[in-house]
């Protein structure tokens, strides 16, 4: 591969990474806003997962998660602490995906349906969806988050890295 080809490949990778960062940021701001504007609805949906019986903890989760998603989305859009934010989102997405998958299995058993025919509002911010579609969307977002961890595409970033390496 010539230097010219390597250069174009690098430009392509950086462009893709910047677009991925903006897309991921915009998606999280949107999904966070849809929940933050209707927190009681989100609280009811979150309660259906049976994560906790403690009212304060359930309220805290329902109150904080939407705004936390908005916060992370804004960081990605602005290009601040990109890899730390991407790691945080990747961990959240992995947890949410497992929860949605587990709940879908329970609903599948209860309704005696094929797995992909199970549809419910997972509280993810997009309303009622079929589970296979939802899991696919989550996996795409998870892949984008993991991609951002590579640290490429630093263009259009306010402060890509918060923590500098200590002086030798």
């Amino acid at each position, binding site marked *: 591969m010539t230097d010219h080809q390597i250069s174009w490949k690098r430009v392509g990778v950086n462009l893709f990474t910047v677009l991925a960062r903006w897309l991921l940021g915009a998606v999280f701001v949107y999904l966070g806003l849809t929940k*933050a*504007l*209707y*927190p*009681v609805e989100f*609280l009811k949906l979150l*309660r259906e997962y049976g994560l906790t019986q403690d*009212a*304060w903890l359930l*309220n*805290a989760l*329902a*109150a*904080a*998660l*939407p*705004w*936390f998603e*908005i*916060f*992370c989305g804004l*960081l990605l859009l602005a290009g601040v*602490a990109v*890899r*730390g*934010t991407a*790691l*945080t989102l990747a*961990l959240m997405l992995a947890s949410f995906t497992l929860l949605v998958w587990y709940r879908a299995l329970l609903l599948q058993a209860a309704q005696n349906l094929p797995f992909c025919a199970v549809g419910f509002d997972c509280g993810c911010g997009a309303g009622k969806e079929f589970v296979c579609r939802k899991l696919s969307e989550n996996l795409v977002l998870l892949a984008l988050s993991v991609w951002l*961890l590579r*640290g490429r595409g630093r263009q259009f970033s306010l402060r890509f*890295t*918060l*923590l500098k*390496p*200590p002086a030798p």
Partner: protein
Amino acid sequence: MKVDRRTPVGRVLLEAALVAVVGAAFAFAANHVSPRGLALDRDYFPAETNDVVRVAVIAAPADSPAGTNPAAPSSLPPPAVPTTGKALQLIDGRQTVQLLHDSHLKPGAIVFIDARDEEHYLGGHVPGAYEFDPYHPEKYFPAVLPVCRAAEQIVVYCNGGDCDDSKTAAVLLQDMGIANQKIFIYGGGITEWSTNHQPVETGVRNSGNVNITIQ
């Protein structure tokens, strides 16, 4: 576990922890200042531990014309669970229709409470029903409590199906001193009501815009 800031992985882990801490602080602050924010110390689902019993017969309000509130069908089963002082009383669509009919004969004796949010209430409710979103009760108590105290029977409903909001509203009314004996839950909710082509009023209470289906 000690994270080494000198390595790239260590710095990403520390950065993620920083994002998590600052993000959590931002999230709770935003919830606190948001007019729609949740109150962390409130139990939004107080009806979880309440029994629900099916009511076979509803006593007619005093002075109600004879024959306007016939006994409910004898096919209704007896209470399925032991009743307690806080047990919620469930009625069906036929009983609810009868109560709406009776409410026209003696205004104020029978009150309907719509336990859904404002958007759904304005989209269509039982004619004359009061709006009472149980997740923002303080907003509705001034209008709802006086009529509930004066009423002899109160019918609370929400969407029906899996909706628990009517039970939540009923428990809130109990907590505010409304006698449980006069509170009834219409389990079928507005969905069953409109499916059965019962009258539905759109817009604000007593708007006069009554249809047989939700617009």
